[in-house]
């Protein structure tokens, strides 16, 4: 998996994290770390571009959940502390986070996993990059 980071300016600055490849248990921490770096650099809005992501596991969903927590001002669990700590997270995601992280172009299989996990109802999903940036 590769993650490219680009900045866009709509009404607010938006970091676009484009994921190329499968998002699974071997690399989901890389995505969290990239989002943490963007957040530390002052980015408060993240668009996850899933156009080239054909597979997402439950670990990938944990990454999305952790980034949402991060953007609503909470510290996500330390990935180095282990899978159990991350999976034990039971904190909810607020409407505040929904305004700060959005998804672009999830592929059918990824969308199916989002729906089945219940996370699809939380994330705002876009299919057009310009509209997605303008929505923040």
């Amino acid at each position, binding site marked *: 998996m590769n993650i490219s980071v680009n900045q866009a300016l709509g009404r607010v600055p938006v970091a676009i994290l484009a994921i190329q490849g499968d998002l699974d248990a*071997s690399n989901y921490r890389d995505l969290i770390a990239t989002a943490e770096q963007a957040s530390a650099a002052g980015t408060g809005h993240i668009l996850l571009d899933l156009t080239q992501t054909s597979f997402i596991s439950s670990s990938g969903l944990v990454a999305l959940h952790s980034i949402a927590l991060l953007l609503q001002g909470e510290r996500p669990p330390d990935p180095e502390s282990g899978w159990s700590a991350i999976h034990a997270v039971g904190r909810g995601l607020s409407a505040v986070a929904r305004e700060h992280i959005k998804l672009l172009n999830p592929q059918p299989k990824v969308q199916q996993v989002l729906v089945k996990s219940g996370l699809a109802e939380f994330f705002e999903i876009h299919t057009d990059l310009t509209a997605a940036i303008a929505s923040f």
Partner: protein
Amino acid sequence: MDMTSRLRVPAELQNLGVIRRFVQETAIAQGSDRQAVADMLQAVEEAAANIVVHGYCGQPGDIEVEVSLEKAVLAVRLRDRATLFDPTSVPPPDLALPLEERRLGGLGIHLARHFTDSMTYRVTDDGRNELTLRRKIGS
């Protein structure tokens, strides 16, 4: 005629992609349809990740993956020598709860259940965990 192919890899997270590719290529070659294979890959990923992370807990070990097509059913068996654990005993999440009250724990097993027609567990004669995932093809 039943066809069976096997792979044995070290139980490491970086091998999850190797396992998925093996299952995908083997199942397609055996005659499974792409939808069935895609669903199976989701379940295999979750089950294999659980073996690596919760089963072996970072200790060295192997995962054996066996792929077969048995009377229009794609079957994948995962065998390991980690601590004995029956993942089918994990209760399903309470989907009646609103999202903010749900917990993420157990999500992987939930997805594995959803994307397969059955999940069965047994301890093999030589004392290994064996999880069998089945998905009908052509449906």
